[in-house]
Every structure is written in structure tokens, then in C-alpha cells.
């Protein structure tokens, strides 16, 4: 430290250590736990690590720390509890619900420096990971061993295993391989009370009561920190094929899904609308997949070995008139470029600063639900473009309302905000979920009651106070 830094630190400490109410604002105990290179307080770092993929709230943490061990995390939580310092766990910051945003002077706890795969057992097929292992790194690690980590989505090059667990991330292969939850065989967590819990330690069978591990999956950092995870790996995927089908009528998409599921095991069943296709093609300069454009498209993935059965299913859906045209990848390169049509959508509509909603209903309820939501938006704002896509095989729709160029962002979001309750009421009526896989965070915290009953929310609050008695774990997220 140079003299200048010492002076600066002293002045800042004097200014911020005690603010109104005696709360510690600039936690000085951080310097007792962490070495200087593990703490950042500069504006750039605070802006960078203080938020996730969302942009609606300005990041304003008091500091960012980068623990290297579970012991450091534990020491941090204990001191934070004593000083009532709010902590925000931070992973790859690709979250879409504001879960990792620190907008109120919290200390951000980034797992960027806990990014090692600690060990791997080939018999158990379990990789023991620190929480900051990037999802894509675990995928490559598996691939190098002739195995696969099957949870995959467009942000897997940046997201962390810890963040994936905290949000129970899903993605594009849920229909076959399930959610992150299904691959977590053990968790080590530091609770908000500062206790280190080792949950399930990699066992397949363990009938000893409450499985605490699963409480932390999807907890969005509100109960404690995930400091280690044992992730099961799958056997390597077979060579596969990608099919894109043109489906003029939305309800027929589900008949197509059923027809294919009768014949083959699907590893993906995604859909997108013509508007979504137009945007992604314009953005990435991609070729039109089918010779005849239509209203909706389905993207299917399945093993090469099932090609004949898939062709039979295709013949049937053509005959029924549900599908008008389709293409089939003839190489992995083509499979990858067909996937771009789906995976590039989110990025291609970012320039329209869309109002996003990630909703789920039962697959059978999808057609009626989609129609009602579209009607609801169109009735209120007939000139807004509605762009639909999503993991339809899981009943998961991504609703994106695009901002007309002439409108200011503020006015647009305010307008969309007025229809949110109507959309969520439609979700509630359909028995669905206001957040399929992106979490509640701050973005949907005010709407939780549309998917959870008062009794359930009370139980959730009880759990929260049990694990986080001092209310220091990611306050203001999920439960408000």
C-alpha cells in the first residue's frame, strides 16, 4: 500500500464506518479476513461485480470480495452477522432476475477465485467443484473424459455451477436430462448463521430424512453460500441430429411434440415464432431454414440412431397437415447453425430492450395460455411486437415484448409494468409459474403470490429465518 492509499482508506473509513443507525457501511472487518488483492472497492469493480444480466437497477455495493476457501466464507458470514452486513452471492452474473444485483451498499461475494474442479472419481462419475467453476468448463472437463455435463444454455460460457445451483438452471436439454437439481449429488453450504453443512456427500441413496441439499437448489443465495458441489456427469451423448419444422398453427406444435415423443427420445424440443426468426436471421445473417416461411417453428434434437423413426414421425405430421416443411441437419456444423436460430434470439432482440417474462404452464395448457397472453398485450398496446420462443417441450415460454423505436425505455417499461399483473393473473389461472427457470430475484419478488399461496410463503419465510437468522443473505431477493 502506498501512503496515498492508506490516507484514502483512513478518510473513507472515517466517513463511512458509522452511518445513521450505527450500521457498518464500509465493512472494515473485510481486511481482517481477506488479503488486499481479494477485496475491491473501486467504482469499476463495484459496477462490474455489483450486477447480473439485468439493467434496471444501478449497482452500488460497498465492496466486492473474492474468497478462496470455504473457511474464508465462513469467517465472512460470522463477522457479517455480528455487524448486520448484507451479503450478495455472485456467480457468473448471467442471471436474468436481478438475484446477484447489489444496489444498496451490500458486500458482493464473488466466487471468481473459487473456480477449481477439486477432484473427479471415474467410478462414481462425480466431479467435486468449487462454486465458481464455469458451466462450460465443467462441460469440457466431462468431454475430455468421454463423458458429458448435460445442462446447457446460451450463457453456459459465463455462468457458474454455484449460480446454476442457486437458480436451478434448466436450459435446452431439460426434456431429456432434467434440471441442474438432477445432477447435484452433494453440496457444502455456509448458512447465513455461519454454519458449514455437508449435504448428502455424493450418495445416490440416502433415506435419512429431510434432504437439505434440495433446499439450497433454487434458493437464489437467500439461505447461504454454496461453497462446494459434487456434480454427477452423464455418459457422452451419441452423435445427434437437429430438425427444424414449420408449423403454421401453435396448437399443432403440441401434437407434433406428442407424435415425435411416441417414436423417439427427444433431447430438445424448442419453438420460436416467425418474428423471432426474422430478428435472429437479421442479426446473425443466417439463411432462411425452410423454403416456405410460416408462423411457428419447432426445433428438435435426437440421436442419429433414431433417424428412421424420426422420419416416420415426420411423415405422419406432414400427412396430418400439422407441419408444412422441414429440414434435417446432415452434419454437426449444420446442427450448430440450426441451433443458432434458437440460441441467438435472446441476443438479437437485446437492441429492442424487451420486456421479458419467463413463464411456465403445463404443456397441455400452452395453446390457450399463449393466445390469452398475446390478446392481453395486444389489447393494451396493439403496436407492440410480441416475440415468443422457449423450451416448449417443458411447458416453458419466453415472452418478449419489443419496444417500438419511438418510445422511451422508461415509458415502455412503465407501460409493460401495468400489464404484468394481468399476465401473472393468467399464469395463476392456468396453475402455472411466474418464473420457469430464471428465478424470482428482485424482478418478480412482488409477484410471488401469483404462484405461491400465503401458507407456502409463510413456510418459506420460516425456512429463511432458520438458515439466515440475521437476514444478511441476499436481502430483498425472492422474499420481500
Amino acid at each position, binding site marked *: 500500500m502506498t501512503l496515498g492509499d492508506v490516507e484514502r482508506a483512513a478518510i473513507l473509513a472515517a466517513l463511512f464506518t458509522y452511518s445513521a443507525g450505527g450500521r457498518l457501511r464500509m465493512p472494515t472487518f473485510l481486511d481482517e479476513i481477506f488479503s488486499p488483492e481479494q477485496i475491491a472497492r473501486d467504482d469499476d469493480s463495484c459496477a462490474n461485480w455489483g450486477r447480473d444480466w439485468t439493467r434496471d437497477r444501478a449497482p452500488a455495493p460497498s465492496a466486492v470480495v473474492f474468497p478462496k476457501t470455504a473457511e474464508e466464507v465462513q469467517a465472512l458470514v460470522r463477522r457479517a452477522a455480528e455487524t448486520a452486513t448484507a451479503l450478495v452471492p455472485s456467480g457468473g452474473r448471467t442471471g436474468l432476475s436481478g438475484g446477484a444485483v447489489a444496489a444498496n451498499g451490500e458486500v458482493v461475494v464473488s466466487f471468481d477465485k473459487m473456480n477449481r474442479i477439486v477432484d473427479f472419481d471415474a467410478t462414481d462419475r462425480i466431479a467435486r467443484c468449487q462454486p465458481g467453476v464455469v458451466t462450460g468448463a465443467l462441460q469440457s472437463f466431462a468431454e475430455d473424459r468421454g463423458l458429458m455435463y448435460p445442462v446447457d444454455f446460451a450463457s453456459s460460457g459465463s455462468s457458474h455451477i454455484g449460480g446454476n445451483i442457486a437458480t436451478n438452471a434448466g436450459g435446452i436439454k431439460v426434456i431429456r436430462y432434467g434440471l441442474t437439481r438432477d445432477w447435484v449429488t452433494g453440496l457444502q453450504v455456509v448458512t447465513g448463521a455461519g454454519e458449514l453443512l455437508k449435504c448428502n456427500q455424493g450418495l445416490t441413496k440416502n433415506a435419512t430424512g429431510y434432504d437439505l441439499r434440495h433446499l439450497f437448489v433454487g434458493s437464489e443465495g437467500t439461505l447461504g453460500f454454496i461453497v462446494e458441489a459434487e456434480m454427477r456427469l452423464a455418459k457422452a451423448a451419441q452423435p445427434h441430429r437437429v430438425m*427444424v419444422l414449420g408449423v403454421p398453427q401453435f396448437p399443432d406444435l403440441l401434437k407434433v411434440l406428442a407424435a415425435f415423443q411416441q417414436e423417439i427420445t427427444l433431447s430438445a424440443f424448442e419453438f420460436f415464432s416467425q418474428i423471432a426468426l426474422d430478428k435472429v436471421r437479421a442479426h446473425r445473417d443466417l439463411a432462411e431454414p*425452410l423454403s416456405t416461411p410460416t408462423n411457428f417453428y419447432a426445433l428438435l434434437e435426437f440421436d442419429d440412431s433414431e433417424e428412421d423413426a424420426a422420419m416416420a414421425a415426420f*411423415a405422419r405430421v406432414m400427412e396430418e397437415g400439422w407441419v408444412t416443411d422441414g*429440414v*434435417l441437419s*446432415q452434419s*454437426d456444423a449444420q446442427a450448430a447453425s440450426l441451433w443458432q436460430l434458437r440460441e441467438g434470439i435472446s441476443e438479437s432482440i437485446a437492441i429492442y430492450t424487451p420486456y421479458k417474462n419467463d413463464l411456465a404452464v403445463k404443456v397441455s395448457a400452452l395453446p390457450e395460455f399463449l393466445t390469452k397472453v398475446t390478446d392481453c398485450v395486444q389489447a393494451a398496446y396493439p403496436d407492440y411486437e410480441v416475440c415468443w420462443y422457449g423450451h416448449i417441450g417443458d411447458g416453458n415460454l419466453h415472452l418478449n415484448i419489443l419496444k417500438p423505436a419511438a418510445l422511451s425505455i422508461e415509458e415502455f417499461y412503465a407501460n409493460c409494468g401495468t400489464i404484468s399483473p394481468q399476465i401473472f393473473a393468467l399464469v395463476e389461472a392456468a396453475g402455472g409459474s411466474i418464473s420457469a427457470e430464471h428465478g424470482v430475484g428482485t424482478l418478480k419478488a412482488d409477484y410471488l403470490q401469483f404462484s405461491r399461496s400465503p401458507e407456502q410463503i409463510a413456510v418459506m419465510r420460516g425456512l429463511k429465518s432458520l438458515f439466515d437468522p440475521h437476514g444478511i443473505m441476499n436481502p430483498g431477493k425472492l422474499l420481500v
Partner: protein
Amino acid sequence: MKVMVPVKRVVDYNVKVRVKPDGSGVDLNNVKMSVNPFCEIGIEEAVRLKEAGSATEVIAVAVGSTACQEQLRTCLALGADRAVLIETTDEVQPLGVARALAALQAKEEAGLVIFGKQSIDGDNCQTGQMFAALANMPQGTFASEVTIEGDKVKVIREVDGGLQTVQLSMPAVVSTDLRLNEPRYASLPNIMKAKKKPLDVHSPQDLGVDVAPTMEVLNVAPPAERAAGIIVDSVEALVDKLKNEAKVIS
């Protein structure tokens, strides 16, 4: 005019290949096989010539194992009219393939034979040229544009640092470069129709040629692994290392 397009079955471009531990070759177990991307461009070009009325028939030809039928069916789905497999269990090498194709050309008398400029597995870049010599045909290699002009074909070639335009009298040989076209997707209705298109199988003996390998692969080794990077403390340290260790600046 008939157009003949030889296609090779190769490890898919997107597959991360693994060298077998004994160095005898690449592990093909459970690995996706596809049409060599340059050959796929050849098929696309031939189909476009047919769609434009310059060609009357497109014939896809493969030399290799019975599994090549899969790639030939792809070509039929993409618009080839018929396919020929010259079936052999021998390892296929450029000279053998060129001989077999020259024998077939003697029967088919195609006006244009469109090769990929090279296959992405062996990177030989020889078969088209050997074929041109054996069949005594002019060749326009590394084509980025092909135009039929009466009984001649104009080929714009990608040469180092520029383009060269040549005119060939047909029958002629063309080999495709990457920018010639962007191949289409195989449509499902066409894949279904392709199942009914003719696919003839010949042996090299039928054609009176020998495709046995004349070259032996002694060893295959993966590229050397890169050493791990280091983080330096300051710009000065970086400049020092670039100067004195890496010697990339002075």
C-alpha cells in the same frame, strides 16, 4: 450435360478429434461422420447448375466402405439425381480414388466433374488434380465462381493474394473453395424422396481398377500442447519478457 461430384465421408468438421494412444490414427469410435464440407459445396454448385438449366443430371460418387451410402443419401436429398458407390474396404488414398473415378468417367462421360479442393481429414488436395491428369481433362482448382459459357466453363480461382480467371473447354475438372456457395439444408420431403432415387454399387474390379493403398501411415500425433500462460505484475515486466524471452519485439 452431366455433372459428376465425388464426395468423401469424413469425420465431422465440428468433432474434436482424438488421436489413438498408439499413434495409429484418429479414434473414430462413436464419432459423427459427414460429407466433406468442400464436397458439399460441390454438390450445391452442381444442383444450382441444374436448377439454372446448365446441367441435366447430377451424379454423386463416393469411393469407400458401404457406410458411405449414408453420405450419398444426403447428396440425393440435396438434389443429386443418382448416386454411385465404388465400394472397397481398402483405406482410400488419392491415387486409388482418382483411378476409380477416371474409370467411371470413361463410362459416364460427364461434362463437368466438381471436386472439393481437399478433404478435411487427410488434407491431401490431390485427388482432383490426379483425376484431371488420368482423364486428360483441363482443371480449374480452388473455384470461387463457376459459370458455364456454351461448351466452356469459366472459373474464378482463389490464388494467393488475389483471383485468377480461367476458361476451360469441357469436359473439365473444377475444385471448390469455401466461398463458392453456401450449401442449403436438406429438406425433409426431399430426404424422403431421396430414399427412392437410384444408388448403384460397383466394385473397383467391375471398373477394372486397383484402389489398394500405395502409401503407409507410420504415425499420427496430436499438436503439441501449449504451455500455460503467466500473469505479469506490470507493463515493464511484460515488455521485458516480450523482448528478452519471447523475442517478438526489440
